């Protein structure tokens, strides 16, 4: 087993992951604001 087997070289993946996270965060908070805009419920 060569020594660099474990080495990861994936800058593209990392960027994609960050894009994904950004998308996730935006959608998530949009939902909260939609809820807080709605009628008060309890």
């Amino acid at each position, binding site marked *: 087993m060569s020594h660099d*087997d*474990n*080495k*990861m*070289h*994936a*800058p*593209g*993946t*990392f*960027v*994609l*992951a960050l894009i*994904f996270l950004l*998308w*996730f965060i935006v*959608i*998530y908070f949009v*939902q*909260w604001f*939609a*809820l807080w805009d*709605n009628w008060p*419920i309890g």
Partner: protein
Amino acid sequence: MKDYSHQFRTCETTGLKIHLPAQKLIWVNAVSAVVFLLVGAVMAILIALTRWPAVHLLPQHLFYRFITAHGMNMLVFWIVFFEMAGLIFGASAVLKTRFPAIKFAWFNWILMIIGALLVNYAIFVQGVDVMFTAYPPLKGTPLYYLGIILFAVGALFYSFQFFFAVGIAKKEGWHQGTLPLFTFGMLVAAIIAVFTLLEGAVTFVPTFLWSVGIIPESWMLDSTALYRMHFWAFGHSAQQINLAAMVAIWYLLGTLTVGAKPVNQKLSRIAFLLYIIAINLGSIHHLLVDPGLTSTYKIVNTTYLAFAAVIGSLIHAISIPAAIETAQRKKGLTNGLFEWLTKGPWSDPGWSGMIISFVIFGFIGGVTGILMSTEQLNVLHHNNLRVPGHFHATVVGGTALAFMAVAYYIIPLVLQRKLISKTLAKIQPYIFGLGILMVIMGMTFAGLMGVPRRHWNIELPGIFGGADAMLAIMGVGAIIAFIGLLIFIGIAVLSVFFGEKIPSKMEVHNPPFPVKEGVSDRKTATT
């Protein structure tokens, strides 16, 4: 000890040693899966065209009956039969070992087939239209519940057999050391399956007894909340089986398509373990707007307990593409950030299916799932079309597509038949992906406008006019996705029966380091 040494052939592409009796089992489970996929697909197009208001195809009783049939045949029979094939493959070929108790395995398959046929008989002949959730006091016929129980028992036995097979591989020395990652993922799926199917028994044995008149209706009426909890402990956990199996298949496809190696097996395995310890409690996210539960209970179940599993998924979300990217860069695709992706083998349905399934699952299915399982946000989602929008992204665009993608490899490598049409296979993931994406989008946006799920005619309340365009997108997408499914089914079935045979390379195969006395002197030879 019995001599199994002549029951093996070698796969020339992967070097896997395939136990021939296990291969037959994989064949029968995979073919069963595809047959039920066909039934589910016909139901899908019919109900989707009914929900498209401009078409409004079916009369009401058939609509509800066919949703029931669609849910059962797709979510349960297609997916689970395919997973059984995956379990057998993971416990035999990948470990280069024999699959023990072949007769018992056939018995389990028969149980499952009888179960599936009974359920379909109950739906189509007896007219059961209770939906796969079957919330009492909606009542199915005894055969309906019996069918589900038989099917679940067969699947439970298969899970036990998986553990047994792994044990035999170790004990007889076929396999030594750490389990390969794919098999490890399937092991996780099988462990979750045990819990899930036991919960299935807790749910469906009482309902069966009620349907034959042993348990009185008043009990069921008082236990609706309890039923919902147990049903979802079963129904949601079942989705975690699918999740674990799908992720294992993504890793497998990464290897088969571009030779990807998981960059850090420690991390990937920990991520799988998080699925086991965390997810079952997350089932409570189905009950977030139910009467009778406190906020504390809901938050505890849907936050840190479920988020441990979310972390697991987010780990896979980086380690799978990272493995692929690393492998591609080693081949010299190093330009820019994304050459490894853009220059991927896009005409290989295994690759395109994997990528599309990964994107639909992650970007849509995963995200919408977290939204809905947030305590307060659930009130904006519960039971409207956003829910089917979400799970068609997870279990259809994600799991079902990943299964189809891997089938393009299973058919030649394991079932030894050439695909009858490479050209159609090439375009199939794109067609299906596009169609199901439109279905998902149509459902999600119609749901945002409040359109309920499982509803025959939304014109009646007179307030959903604005959603017609969305439902039309869903309808057109359904036609495209249906065509995609038919292409897949056609290729799979015709290849398996009429495809050109790929000859076996037979090999005398023995445990490399037999533990038992008396077998160690046998030689491994290629014929």
